[in-house]
């Protein structure tokens, strides 16, 4: 298998005046579970659509399994399992027909796995898609996406519509099983706890750009949340180089910051302060800090 499953370089895409993706670069290797996070309109679904060849790159390049998904849809889509955000499935089909139809496209279809998942989700194969709830539709779509054991599984907001049990137990298990087989999973979500739980790589997108990209543990180690006390009273947050965001007021501030803790300690000391306590920042704190900083920079520009 290739060392790089997905290779996106300098990808840009605009819809009219709106820039949806702006110089995005992104890579995914076999066996990785890649979480795409970002606020609404950050560009997650647009990036996924490029991976599937549904959108053409106006600048930059997209390679999946070393192929261009627009020029070679058969070669790429034959190895991908995809669950769309809209859960778009033919309404007139029954679940069984959906499985048979999807199976015809994928010679590696695992019938036993399909039956196992149908039982796990308690889905009746005779039921029509149009009669399914949103969650059941997501479950049917998920089975159709994973039962042919794809080399790359792409899930767009997989948790949407799923109850907490299915989300935590079944979805996690399915994703982990795919990754354990040495295959790749890319999923988008705005549920940061889910990304922390499921993924080993994280890409934070903000306003069409990659704001943060790396292994989840590395990313968490790079950022800390520290409580700081100053001698002086500040009405506005004091300027500290490595600080991404500061909350609080007066002498006591809570800071999410990058760089080493020692660097930060020196910067705080230079403003007449000291670190009271410090810990690794959560993904949510990092996300809020990065998104907030980007917004501030955009406003300043």
């Amino acid at each position, binding site marked *: 298998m290739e060392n790089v499953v997905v290779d996106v370089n300098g990808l840009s895409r605009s819809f009219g005046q709106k820039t949806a993706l702006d110089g995005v670069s992104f890579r995914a290797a076999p066996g990785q579970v890649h979480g795409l996070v970002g606020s609404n309109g950050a560009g997650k679904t647009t990036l996924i659509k490029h991976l599937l060849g549904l959108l053409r790159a106006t600048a930059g390049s997209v390679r999946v399994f070393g192929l261009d998904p627009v020029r070679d849809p058969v070669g*790429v889509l034959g190895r991908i399992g995809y669950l*769309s955000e809209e859960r778009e499935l033919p309404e007139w089909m029954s679940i069984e027909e959906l499985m048979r139809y999807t199976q015809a496209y994928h010679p590696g279809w695992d019938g036993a796995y399909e039956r196992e998942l149908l039982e796990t989700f308690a889905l009746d194969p005779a039921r029509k898609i149009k009669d399914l709830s949103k969650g059941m539709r997501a479950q049917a779509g998920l089975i159709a996406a994973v039962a042919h054991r794809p080399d790359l599984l792409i899930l767009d907001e997989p948790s949407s519509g799923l109850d907490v049990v299915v989300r935590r137990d079944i979805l996690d298990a399915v994703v982990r099983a795919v990754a354990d087989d040495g295959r790749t999973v890319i999923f988008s979500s705005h549920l940061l706890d889910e990304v922390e739980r499921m993924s080993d790589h994280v890409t934070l997108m903000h306003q069409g750009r990659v704001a943060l990209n790396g292994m989840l543990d590395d990313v968490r180690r790079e950022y800390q949340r520290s409580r700081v006390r100053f001698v002086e009273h500040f009405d506005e947050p004091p300027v500290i180089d490595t600080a991404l965001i500061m909350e609080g007021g007066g002498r006591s501030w809570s800071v999410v910051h990058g760089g080493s803790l020692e660097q930060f300690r020196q910067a705080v000391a230079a403003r007449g302060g000291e670190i009271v306590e410090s810990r690794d920042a959560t993904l949510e704190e990092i996300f809020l800090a990065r998104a907030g900083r980007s917004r501030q920079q955009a406003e300043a520009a």
Partner: protein
Amino acid sequence: MNLRSAVVAMLWEQWRLSRVEGVQRLFLGLLAASGALLLNQDNGVTVAVWILAAAHGFFWFSIAKLNGGRFMDGYKPGFPLYLLYTRPLPTALVVGVSMAYDALSCAALYILSAALLGAAFGKPLPMFSVAACLVAYHLVSTCIQWSTQNRIVQWVGSIAIFWPLVGLLKSSLDSPDQGRFTLAQGAMLVLLGLVSFGLTVAGVARQRRGDAVAQEPRKEIWGGYPEWMVNLVRFSCPTSSAMKAQLWFELRSSGLPVLTIGLSLAVLICLLFAAGIVIAPLRTVAMGITVFSFPFVLFFCASNAFGIRSKQGRLYAGTFETTQPYGTAQLAALKVLVRSACVLIALATIAASVWASSSFMGAWGAWSAGIEGGVNAVPELLKFRGRIGDAIAGQSGWGFVALAAVVSIGVAGLVAWQSAREALRVRYARRVLVAQWAPAAWGLSIGLATLAGKTGFIAPSAVRSIVQAAMWLPTAALLLATIYFLRSNVAERVLTVRYVAGALAILAAFGAAYATLLAGAWLGGAEPTLMALLSWPVLLLMMGGALAPWALNRVRHT
């Protein structure tokens, strides 16, 4: 909430939705009615009025498509502006404003057209009687379309109200003081309007409360035929190959519904012709359905083979099909071929039914196309039937084969063109609109040049040169466009060797069959202009073959 601003907002929304269609209707109506006034000196006004009434008689399709498409293409009967249900407005106001906009805007367009034509040609056209009829017809139509979500009521009701109102308009136009209603007729129109409004309010209120079958159309619509048609014939999806599975998909989702429609029309025509022996009014219905069923199947059932969907008026290609690992050219070819085969079978079934059923006309006695005091048309129709029979009997074996090949491949070309047009509307709506108007502009320019030649404004030799050049213009345009699409397809690796070989074989078969049909009858000493005209079917087919995969590729990879 300020009630006035709410009404203005609703009117604005409906104006935004219908303005393009309004311009199209206005322009087409004026163009066709002008032609009628120019060409028909004796009866031009009456023909022009009927043309304008037809142009402005239908409710706004651009608003109706909020329900997910056109009549059978994902369309669901019911109130189309269902997003207004969440507004703090009484149902009567929501319905009243929508019905009033629909009826009054179309009537106003008629009055504007009639006034313009009257001033331009110096022949006053009846205004307010026709406008009153249009308003009544619109109110009843929207009542039938909006108040219920039952398709049978929608279809039967639409047919049932059409003829009485056409009869009323005809009697008004035929009366000596053209355009005056009797008191009883006027009262009937008012009553129709009031009853329609009341029924629509009650029906929409049920939909708003959720008492009706489905309280609002689904957000995600499968762009295809009604589900009961799709599920009429069930057979298992083959899993042995992707092509077989896709064939199953096409047959289930659109092929078999087309066959069902063809078979239903064939049976209906047969029954109506037979019943016409004892029930005289059914003869007109039988003839009407016979005349309309061919264009209906040919143009309606042959459209949108690529399954373009509509959601709140927005066109899009569904991700489910576009993410299946299947080549774009193969997918386009399979879709076009399956739909074409089903349309052909449906047409053949209807034609066989018409042929067999028309023998019942011998027992009808008399029929005069519903015109009082008109000539009995049955003997002429039977003679015409005999001539067709003789023509078919007189055909050689090769003649039959050539005719069958031209018709079959011609239908496939039509399906390819219509499907490509629907697909291109997803991305290039404005350009498609312009392209659709180009033939009309071309025809208009030829007409104007001819008119200028007749009036002596331009020399006859110059007119002849202009017309000749104009006849070659589409030929050149079709050739250049085909080259562009082919180049683009090759550059994007859309075409496969199999597709190109298949397309060339079909084109060669069509060319040979077409030449066989034309040989002897037309080509001997044909003028260059005629040669250009005769080359269009081949060029159109060639371009359709290049355009269809290009269009599907453009919507698959936006």
